[in-house]
């Protein structure tokens, strides 16, 4: 991979990390609030269904994690398993795309879409 791509990947992981820091804080607070009286399907969907704000929040969350996680995974593959080069890059990209698609499906589910 070119030097420029390596630098941009590093930057993308840091910028996604900044977005994730905010998302995770909100996520943790929501979780702590939501488990107070036990989780229920109607309570969760009551919060998320048809709510554009939550939909946008989780969409951004999914996008950021789909950038952040595969870059970290790629580093682990290189350093711990000595797997470098195109094969590892493609593998990490596939993991990222899968997370994004699978995650968006979950967001659609709680927003109130129909099964894709």
């Amino acid at each position, binding site marked *: *991979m070119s*030097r*420029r791509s*390596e*630098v*941009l990947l*590093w*930057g993308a992981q*840091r910028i996604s990390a900044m977005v994730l820091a905010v998302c995770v804080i909100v996520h943790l607070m929501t979780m702590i609030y939501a488990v107070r009286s036990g989780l229920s399907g109607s309570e969760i969907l009551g919060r998320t269904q048809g709510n554009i704000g939550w939909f946008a929040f989780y969409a951004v969350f999914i996008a950021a994690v789909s950038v952040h996680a595969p870059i970290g995974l790629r580093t682990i593959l*290189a*350093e*711990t398993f000595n797997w470098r080069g195109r094969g590892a890059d493609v593998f990490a990209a596939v993991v990222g795309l899968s997370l994004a698609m699978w995650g968006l499906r979950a967001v659609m589910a709680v927003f109130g879409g129909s099964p894709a």
Partner: protein
Amino acid sequence: METLQVRIWRGKENGGFQEFDVPRQESQTVLDVVTYVQRKCDPTLSYRFACRVGVCGSCAMTVNGVSRWTCRTHVSKVAEDNKVEIAPLRNLPVVKDLVTDMSEFFDKWARARGSFQGSTTRKDGFAQVSPESKERKRVDAGIECIGCGVCYSACDVVTWNKDYLGPAALNRAWTLVNDVRDTGRAERLAAVAGDAGCLACHTHLNCTERCPKGLSPTAGIAGLKRAVLAATLSGEI
């Protein structure tokens, strides 16, 4: 007299530890111990030292598993149950006993463009650099490196990626990036970017933890990361 049980690495990579008994003395350093063994027990023991006072950076070894300068490491600080294990620096090929081949360590300083590039001649006047300027303060924070190789030996990223330039070379590059007289900035930033450069650092702080001069190569490497990202985004490199 109290004796110290010393295990010293003998041979090359596939060598082993040999045990010696060394009389314990007050204010004894690890280098004193090695010198005693070489003079009194086995003259074939190979090791490196020069100044004995923490200036030259040639006597670094692995003492009880930790990279240290041996001339200024007191036995009292590192001995466990009156035992000391002395081995060559890590991450470098072993030539013999406690001597490593440091070529790659210094070659990487060159690869990180660790030499000053100026634009003036002897006919020009002195450059004026305020000691209070941000750049000069950053240079001050990293300039006292003695090139002992302790940080390189302590760094896991070097172990994981043989091409990684390492803390000392990157620290050097950072001091030059902040040298307002230097004209090689773009080439240097390009040289330290990428897979084997500053971006590979994981902030383990092994180098910062072990540097005998109390420097923080991690801090310099972090500075390079920011500079490299900014230079890439602006198209400078």
